[in-house]
């Protein structure tokens, strides 16, 4: 007998599958090039760039204040924190201190935005795993939040709601009361979502042990936000490098234990409760005074560079801005989007899992292609 391998009964070969860019579960235009062995994922390669708009290049062509509307369009479900990141970086560069009332309004807008963004995440994550009802509940509350935004700045999605040196408007009459009512009612709504999911056996089966990230890997790959905290690393820009007036606010940073999809889910749910807590404190302590610092009409920078970052709903959102002397626009503005960095770990998280887990992992990373492609 020769030692050649006998012909196998079935020809087994890997199947290439292009998952996206037009697919209901890839949250926009992500494309994942999959190598499949049956339903098992052998390899996954995210392919991005379908939503590239050259935002960073556009920044170089326009005066600093005009950059802010363009930041809206990066993470388009969390425009306020994008504005905040750019303004915080610019204020650091120009040495501007914003008035306390402006800082509190900013924090309120940012936390409302965090709630809205996490609601979108929960809705899409649940619908990816097959539970359709949370989607409608969360969008009901998100609509109420967007109503507050609309009342404040006229826009619901691309807010353009902050200025370098503060915020453009004072709060309209009655806004504080309406926001207060929303904040008071919100924990009950979170309970409602948790009732549908947290102890649901199928939900637990689909999320526990899926897409596990060790704390070492999370740090090595530069994960931030809930994916990092889900792995048990206590790191939140609001605590470690406080901006605006977060140092005056009392809140906790939830962390997970196992670094799996279920822990990241729990972390975000607690984060929403903490946002409510922050909002409550902001509403109670809202100081009087101007809402914008005295800044010149035309902003001129000196030679320099700055990195300013904020804790966006999806992680650390940083702006690295390089300026030349007396320039009115950035020489270069590099954005560090949390989704882009967090997406890097996708292949490692799904390798060996099934196709159904891929959508769970994409959901748990909470990516927005607008800020990945910029």
């Amino acid at each position, binding site marked *: 007998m020769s030692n050649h391998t006998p012909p196998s009964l079935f020809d087994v070969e890997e199947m290439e599958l292009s998952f996206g860019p037009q697919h209901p579960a890839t949250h926009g235009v992500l494309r994942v090039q999959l190598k499949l062995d049956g339903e098992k994922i052998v390899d996954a390669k995210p392919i991005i760039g379908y939503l590239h708009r050259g935002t960073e290049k556009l920044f170089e062509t326009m005066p600093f204040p005009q950059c802010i509307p363009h930041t809206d369009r990066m993470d388009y479900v969390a425009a306020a924190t994008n504005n905040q990141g750019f303004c915080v970086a610019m204020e650091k560069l120009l040495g501007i201190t914003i008035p306390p009332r402006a800082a509190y309004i900013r924090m309120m807008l940012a936390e409302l935005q965090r709630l809205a963004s996490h609601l979108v995440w929960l809705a899409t994550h649940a619908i990816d795993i097959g*539970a*359709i009802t949370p989607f409608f509940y969360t969008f009901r509350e998100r609509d109420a939040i967007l109503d507050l935004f609309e009342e404040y700045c006229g826009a619901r999605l691309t807010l353009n709601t902050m200025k370098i040196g503060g915020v453009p408007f004072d709060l309209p009459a009655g806004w504080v009361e309406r926001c207060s009512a929303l904040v008071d009612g919100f924990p009950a709504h979170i309970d409602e979502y948790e009732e549908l999911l947290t102890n649901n056996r199928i939900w637990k*089966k689909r999320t526990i042990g899926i897409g596990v990230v060790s704390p070492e890997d999370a740090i090595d790959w530069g994960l931030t936000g809930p994916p990092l905290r889900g792995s048990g690393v206590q790191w939140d820009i609001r605590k470690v490098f406080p901006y605006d007036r977060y140092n005056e606010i009392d809140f906790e940073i939830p962390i997970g234990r196992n670094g799996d999809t279920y822990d990241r889910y729990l972390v975000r749910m607690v984060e929403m409760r903490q946002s409510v807590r922050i909002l409550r404190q902001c509403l109670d302590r809202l100081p009087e005074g101007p809402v914008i610092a005295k800044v010149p009409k035309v902003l001129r920078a000196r030679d320099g560079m700055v990195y300013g970052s904020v804790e966006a709903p999806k992680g650390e959102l940083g702006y690295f801005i390089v300026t030349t002397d007396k320039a009115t626009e950035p020489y270069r503005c590099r954005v560090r989007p949390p989704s882009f960095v967090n997406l890097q770990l996708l292949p490692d998280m799904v390798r060996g899992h099934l196709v159904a887990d891929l959508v769970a992992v994409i959901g748990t990373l909470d990516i927005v292609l607008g800020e990945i492609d910029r």
Partner: protein
Amino acid sequence: MTDPIIRFVVIPLIQTVVILLVLLGIVAYLTLAERKVLAWMQVRIGPNRVGPRGLLQPIADVFKLFAKEDLTPARAERFVFLLAPILIFVPSFLVWAVIPFGETFTVAGFPITPFIADINIAILFVLGVSSIAIYGIILGGWASNNKFSLMGGLRSAAQLVSYEVPLGFAVVSVLLMSGTLSLVGIVEAQRDAGIWFFLPGILGFGIYFICGVAETNRNPFDLPEAESELVGGFHTEYSGMKFAFFFLAEYMNMLVVSSLAVILFFGGWLPPFPNLLAGLWQSSLLSWIPPFIWYLIKVMAFIFVYIWFRGTFPRYRFDQLMAVGWKWLLPLSLANVLLVGVGVLVLKG
């Protein structure tokens, strides 16, 4: 006309046409019911534009599906692509030939049965015919020449085959109690026993209904068409009336599974509490309501549970679904057969 012609040609023809039309109407309005009930569960209104409160929506849907362009993908296997919707649609209607809705009544001296045929192997007929639909799903998924469809087809092949086993055993436990394979006979056995079979066969009923949900590819076992993973699953590439056939078959199968659940476990067309009200039976309000209405109420209760599931549960993963089927339901259903068998032996001697 002579008596045999009326008895064996005219009446069956009328029966068939009436049952088909009524079924089509019920299925059309099931789609509306599902959308409405789901909407109420999800703080929405649901369809409300066509007709008063959206009541004409199913008719508009039918016209829309007829008017749609019927696309066949360029590299699809054309004949099989056409065959698949037929294979899935026909069996789902065929099983209604043996499903009874009520008791025999007489019109002008002719006995009219509210079913087309009462054959002595009715339950085998239902299980056998409805299994043909699996071919429709596999072939449809394969013929589309689309990887998502193929995966959907493979998933449902595995799912339907493995869930048919515990489903069969759950039915066996009822057969042990009734001693007949005829669906009419099973309902009559429940009337004679004075107890619906879901009470002694509660475990069997649980297994039957879980498997039934899986057999109809409904949430939480809707993997073959898991939208977020496989786009549309096996019917991704289908459009127009071909898609409508898949759609109709799904609702028809929901009706079949619910009807069988009612017949096997909930006394078919019998009014509730047969043993409690045995004395005041004839005069009570419950028996005044026609049997068909009782039947419909029970079936609709199951349909509501289907929709409720869809509004509540996430979706199982493929391997978890297999584990539930083979590791839990199959041993449980075997144990159930043993349990019921011993029970019947002891009670009937």
